[in-house]
């Protein structure tokens, strides 16, 4: 992936750049908004990571400008403000995702993957398949081979999200946001308990495991090798 980082804090920028290079991505860095606009508009990037507060032109304005000139790349806002309205404002301006500093690099990476992978035809996809697991979005049915899986509505959504992001790590926070629409950090194990229920339904005794826990990062659904 080609990723542009617009960030004035060198420490954060270095940290993100190092992480991205380590995970095999191409990353470029600029440290002010004006430069960011020029770079992003001409650079054909897959994703842009931008700080909310930049010297000169602030992040919101940069993103609004980029969207108005037709830049389609996925955009993730970074911010040190734990503001209540900030997320809403960020998404309003044309951002796709929002991450509060400090963040674990794995969290940023998972979100970048999720953004870049968004298949353009996802809206017309009606059946998702991973190995012998099948999810019919119209009939609201899940099947593993010939076996029907009875899912509760929230479990269905959880599985749908995992399958749409198959082979990619999704973090706990991403699941909270996308499956439950919770934009706060619950102090109890919501994701863990739902995930273990779902896992037990998807893989019975003897069937190969499809949902895997990635320690310190999140979960991934993938076909057995």
């Amino acid at each position, binding site marked *: 992936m080609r990723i542009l980082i617009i960030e004035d*804090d060198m*420490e*954060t920028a270095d*940290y993100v750049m*190092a992480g991205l290079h*380590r995970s095999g991505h191409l990353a470029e860095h600029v440290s002010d908004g004006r430069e960011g606009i020029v770079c992003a508009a001409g650079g054909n990037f897959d994703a842009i990571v931008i700080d909310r507060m930049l010297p000169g032109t602030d992040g919101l304005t940069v993103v609004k400008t980029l969207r108005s000139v037709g830049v389609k790349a996925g955009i993730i806002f970074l911010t*040190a*403000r*734990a*503001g*209540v*309205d900030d*997320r*809403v*404002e960020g*998404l*309003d301006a044309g951002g796709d995702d929002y991450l*509060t*500093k*400090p963040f*674990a*690099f794995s969290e940023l990476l998972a979100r970048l993957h999720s953004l870049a992978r968004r298949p353009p035809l996802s809206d017309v996809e*009606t059946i998702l398949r991973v190995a012998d697991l099948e999810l019919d*979005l*119209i*009939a*609201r*049915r899940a099947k593993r081979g010939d076996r029907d899986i009875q899912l*509760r*509505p*929230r479990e*269905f*959504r959880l599985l*749908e999200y995992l399958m749409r992001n198959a082979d990619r790590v999704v973090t706990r926070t991403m699941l909270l946001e*996308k499956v*439950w*629409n*919770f*934009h*706060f*950090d*619950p*102090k*109890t*194990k*919501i994701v863990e*308990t*739902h995930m273990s*229920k779902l896992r037990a339904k998807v893989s019975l005794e003897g069937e190969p495991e499809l949902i895997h826990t990635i320690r*310190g990062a999140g979960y991934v659904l993938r076909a057995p090798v």
Partner: protein
Amino acid sequence: MFFGRPFRIFRTASFALALLYAALFAGSAVVLGCIVYWTVQNSVDRQLTARIEGELQLLEVVLQADGSAELVRQVQQRVVYAGNLEYFLADADGKRLAGSLPEATRKLGWSDIEVPDQQNRGHTKTFRVKTKVFDNGYRMTVGDDLAPIYEIRRAFFEALIWTLAAFLGLALLGGILLSTLFLRRVDAISKTVAEIIGGNLNSRVPLRGTYDPFDRLSASLNRMLDRIQLLMETLSQISNDIAHALRTPLSRLRHKLETALIAERNSESNKTIDAALMETDTILDTFSALLRIAQIESGTRTAGFGNLDLSNLFETVADAFATVAEDEGKTLTANIAPKVTYWGDADLLSEMLANLIENAIKHTAEGTEIEITLSTQNGVPVAAVADNGPGVPDQHRTRIFRRFYRLECSSGTPGSGLGLALVAAVAELHGIELVVADNQPGLRMTMSFVAQPPKQAEIRDFTGLSLFAEQEKSVPLQAHAVPGVH
């Protein structure tokens, strides 16, 4: 103002004052009137008595000087010519010799008698008379009509009643006028205060420049508000500075720890770094929570507000935590009425409810039953999170909403002590009345969603951002399968 809210005026201090003054004036008018009446009455009375007395003496002198015949002649003459005195003269046997008064009184000395009115049949006139027996045995009565005295009394009372009526009317009018002016000033101050409570710290009480007491009070209030605003701005500036000054190094610390974790192959050091990372996260979490609470409390962050489906929100949160509760050996039941709506921020309200439920899950023993309800009572959405756990002692109930306040018995369980402070802040921002009660046994948190939504004009379209609209988009036909539809 006066026509719109007529009853409010009667409760103002100025109206009460006007009424009090009216009562005082009316009272003094009555006292003054009584004194005048008494004096006039007395003087008229005295004149009357003196005239009768004088006439009697004169007639007695006539008798003594000129004899009985002359007296009778004089009396007859006076009956014919005299203006207003009336007479009756009888001899020693009681036979009428002269005079027009009826033979009404044989009583000696002063008395009031009723006499049929010649001009006005059926009516009587009252006369004051004095009867005296002269030396020759003649009984002489002289009297005068009391009508003028009665007339004075009647006129006086009439005047008094008119005066009182005028007093009351003027007092009422003046009171209303004063109160209206008074209320207008008070309302201006109330409006400003309401705006400030609502989060607009720049609002000030308008001044008239008249230097009246109200203007001086308003000016003092404005100076106080300037000062408060300055303090709050300083405070928020400091909070932001701290947030930045501390968050940035903490973020770097976190990044370094994470990088170290990736680089380090030694599993023993890894554990230590992992623990340090978790500690850093705890510090950052507490920090974020504090800043968030402060921001919500400032009441200015309402961009995420919209008309939202409370029932749906409650269902989602209750559903999310039911599994968690079950995992902890507790049961969570939800009794949620459909189609309850409210004006608010879906994210914040979800977090509020989640915090309350998590509290109930964390601080109770296994086997506890937790119940979540939502209904509409008298047009107001009312919700509750109740459990049959250990509850909260009476004296702690108001304190549990303070930052970092934790009951002694819960010091063993993890938590920052900020969850309920955030609940209180969200409730305050949304105009939700939060009541902590004994569930006998256990704890019952009741929320009454009493705030009115803003006027239609202020409602912006939030559907694109709304929690549930988003769900609808990504999960079509969530409720049930409709084969053949795509």
